[in-house]
């Protein structure tokens, strides 16, 4: 069973003459423990695909199946609690980390757990474990403004992992980082995918990082134009 499965997904913005196709007839699969990339230039439809899989953008056509549950078939399946699925099964990593500026590194990780009704004590324990594993034990009580770019992204990764999600969706996680930090982040994601058996789907236009992925879907002008399995 795939953690993420997309069948013929199409997303059209607007109607009539003003309609714009964001993504058309896209199909992809990501298995647990797999690190998969959606590669393409700006405006190619990568983020549209990611947001549809992330239950943010309702597809116009097609099917989205997450962890064996069909969440969209032409449209969202009625009665499905999208927020709950996002909360419990998906971890997000963003291009600009999106850490909450008024929370410390520790609190930024804890908030994911507390949103998911984890008791504060347990949330703190889990957050400290994660941040220590990512070599951030000395930064627990620092606000984002005091952290470096690499540290910020590692806190963001810790936050995405906090809930032990089945899948992690990353939107350009290395775009704001230099090559060395970008490589470190990718290596970390790869390690986590294997260790936690999570499906990790990364949207990127950064060709420097391609060697890290198990599979690459190339997107151009709203279409998946190629699928490549690497030996990484």
């Amino acid at each position, binding site marked *: 069973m795939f953690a993420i499965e997309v069948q013929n997904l199409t997303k059209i913005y607007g109607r009539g003459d003003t309609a714009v196709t964001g993504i058309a007839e896209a199909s992809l699969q990501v298995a647990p423990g797999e690190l998969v990339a959606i590669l393409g230039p700006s405006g190619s439809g990568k983020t549209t695909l990611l947001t549809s899989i992330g239950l943010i953008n309702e597809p116009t056509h097609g099917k989205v199946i997450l962890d064996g549950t069909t969440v969209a078939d032409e449209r969202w399946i009625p009665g499905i609690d999208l*927020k709950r699925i996002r909360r419990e099964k998906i971890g*997000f990593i963003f291009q600009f980390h999106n850490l909450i500026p008024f929370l410390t590194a520790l609190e930024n990780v804890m908030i994911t757990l507390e949103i998911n009704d984890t008791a504060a004590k347990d949330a703190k324990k889990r957050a400290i474990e994660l941040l220590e594993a990512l070599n951030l034990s000395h930064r627990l009580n620092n606000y984002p403004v005091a952290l470096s770019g690499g540290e910020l992204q590692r806190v963001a990764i810790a936050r995405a992992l906090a809930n032990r999600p089945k899948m992690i969706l990353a939107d350009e996680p290395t775009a704001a980082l230099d090559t060395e930090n970008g490589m470190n982040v990718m290596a970390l994601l790869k390690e986590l995918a294997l260790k936690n058996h999570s499906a990790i789907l990364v949207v990127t236009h950064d060709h420097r990082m391609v060697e890290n992925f198990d599979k690459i879907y190339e997107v151009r002008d709203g279409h998946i134009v190629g699928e490549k399995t690497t030996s990484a």
Partner: protein
Amino acid sequence: MNLAIRDIRYHRGRFILTSIGLGLLLGVVLSMGGIYWGLIADALSILDATRADIWVVQQDTNGPFAESSRIQEDIKYRMALVPGVAQASPLSFQTVQIERMGKPFRFFVIGYDLNGFGGPPIIFAGRNIRQKHYEMVVSKGMKMGIGEKIHLGLHDYTVVGITNKIVSTGGDPVAYVSLSDAQDIQFKNDNNAIRNDRERVSSWLSGIQTLSSAQAKSLKQNIAELKESTHTVNAVVVKLNPGANLTKVQERIVRWNHYRAISNEEQSKILSKGMIEKARMQLGLFRIILLIISAVIISLIIYTSTLDKIKVIATLKLMGARNRVIVGMILQQSLLMGVIAYGIGYILIKLTYEKFPRRIELVPFDLYALFAIVVAICIISSFVGIRKALKVEPAQALGG
């Protein structure tokens, strides 16, 4: 984890400054209420100090606090004979402004019968008036010491006692003197004026050929007595026997003596409704305007603070946060700001209200009501921010 508290902790400088600003505004709103209640307390302070049951005043007038009321002092004897009346005592009122230490010094003189009632209710320092003449008890507000002298009319008066803070309806501090002294201050002319008056009467009488010299002399004497009499008062206050029927006593005074008999309650209404109503409306309107301004300020602050957090809100939504987490954050911040600002305003007024030139009366009901209004304003004001926050799309968390 309380996101509202975390945000405030991080932006504490901005939050404290905003709360202080809002607190000052709410302090003004509180002081407006205090001024209003102070006006009422001031207006009723003489009534409270006098403790009369009925105010007998000139017929068809509203009494000495509303308009001119002049009656003869000796009607106190007739009032004392009315069934149900325990005691009747004449009172005289006048506002005096003199020069003292190079500055205008304005106060309100109450003359009372030393054997009756209506004098100073309590003596804080010194003693009450014992001599019939030239002694004075002043209220605290006059800021005079025992033994100090003041020149009024034709004579000097010595302060022998200090009473509590009693003021006239105009807010002037009160001074008590004996009734005869008050009448002298108000009506007695100096010798030159008396001589001139007598000459004028003599000249007028000499023009009447039909009068014999004996008649003219007698007439001149009678006119002089009438003109120089000072036995006029502004009201006679009446205390009733226990169990006496107030309405019946009032009716009897009106029917048989042709005066107006105003109960203490009616006198309070005349003072509070007639004299304070406009001030009340003005202060009330001003308070409403200030509360609207507070509401607008809170709304703007919460709205701009929400705009600052759009990305945070979008991220929280993307992470699957329930709406109540986001609504709670905005609402709690708004409420905290309102409550802290109210506290600042309250402390400010508590620390300064005694330094105001006029009385500020902080009434518990008023304080609680304003607190409830501030809480309601905070809730309503946060709706603008909440509405904006609920419209934020999780997708806004993506991209730059």
